[in-house]
């Protein structure tokens, strides 16, 4: 009973983190929007005013560069905002491809640092699943983090999605050399696996360094 209550508190804490993060990303997106409109306004003025052509081209090029950075920042914050909202509810219908794309965007920097390629092989028009969106991402992250830590440079981790009967499956495999002393079978820490199985309404199986997660299609 005590254990259960602590677990519920942890989940509430997760929702709290999500709410704070969602509010924060909202504010940032507002500021990005202001910067974008200000840059755009300068461009509008340059076009209207009779600025010498060589100068106006130079100014517009600088504005384009600012806009490019705004776009990149905005994309990251859009993913972060969605990620924060994954913690809104414990069970919900969601698209697995979108959820994975979002997670990839947020951990891409780590993969780049470790020179590991995160490859996607997503089935298009995949139906939504009904599960715990936050725990799903947590499970995938735990697995990817373990792989990225234990695989050597230039390895490839492939995440594949597809329909399996009345479920949607996510298969993660890797190609590359494991660092010395690493066990190919040791992947998801057992406590995370047990926790995820309790919350996900789906199944997890692991073999030969691959992992398969199946979640029920949303009715």
């Amino acid at each position, binding site marked *: 009973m005590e254990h259960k209550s602590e677990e519920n508190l942890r989940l509430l804490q997760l929702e709290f983190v999500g709410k704070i993060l969602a509010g924060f990303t909202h504010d940032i997106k*507002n500021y990005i929007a202001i910067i974008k409109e200000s840059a755009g306004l300068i461009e509008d003025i340059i076009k*209207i005013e009779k600025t010498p052509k060589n100068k106006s081209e130079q100014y517009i090029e600088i504005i384009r560069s600012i806009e490019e950075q705004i776009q990149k920042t905005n994309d990251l914050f*859009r993913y972060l905002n969605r990620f924060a909202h994954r913690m809104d509810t414990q069970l919900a219908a969601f698209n697995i491809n979108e959820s994975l794309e979002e997670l990839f965007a947020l951990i891409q920097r780590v993969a780049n640092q470790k020179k590991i390629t995160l490859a996607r092989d997503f089935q298009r028009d995949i139906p939504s699943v009904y599960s715990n969106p936050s725990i799903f991402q947590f499970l995938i992250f735990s697995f990817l983090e373990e792989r990225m830590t234990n695989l050597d440079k230039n390895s490839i981790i492939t995440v594949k999605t597809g329909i399996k009967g009345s479920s949607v499956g996510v298969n993660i495999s890797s190609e590359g050399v494991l660092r010395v002393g690493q066990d190919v079978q040791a992947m998801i820490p057992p406590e995370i696996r047990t926790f995820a199985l309790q919350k996900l309404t789906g199944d997890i199986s692991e073999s030969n360094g691959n992992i398969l997660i199946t979640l029920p299609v949303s009715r």
Partner: protein
Amino acid sequence: MKKKDIKVLVVDDEVAFANTLSQRLQMRELKVGTAYNGEEALSKLKDEEPDVMVLDLKMPGLHGMEVLREIRKAYPDIQVIILTGHGTDKDAEEAKRLGGFDFLRKPADIDHLEHKIRKAFQEKLERTMTAIAFAEAGEFDTARKIIKEEDEEQ
């Protein structure tokens, strides 16, 4: 109809954003006003109705969704485009259900927003023309009467 005849009201609590966006839309030959919260927006409607309202959601005081609800009740001819930095898919569905014309996320491309405003205005014009045509043919009243009779029978 001249371009400047399209009246737009930008409603956003971020003053810098509302002002800059208004300036840019004015440069695109739209007649633009601004309001910095939901209450001010509704108050401005009493003096002059815009054709299109560009409305933020998360504002102190009256939430954008509440403003949209009020507009649907009291000013059904105004087209509302939601422009928010806080848009979840659930918000987009809710705005659609409440009769919002479109749902855009910040930061939006100015040309895209301008296109949506003109499209919203065009749809408003077409709706008005259809209502006039029905009214002139007397079919509008007949249609309402039939619906009323059907309701009474149930």
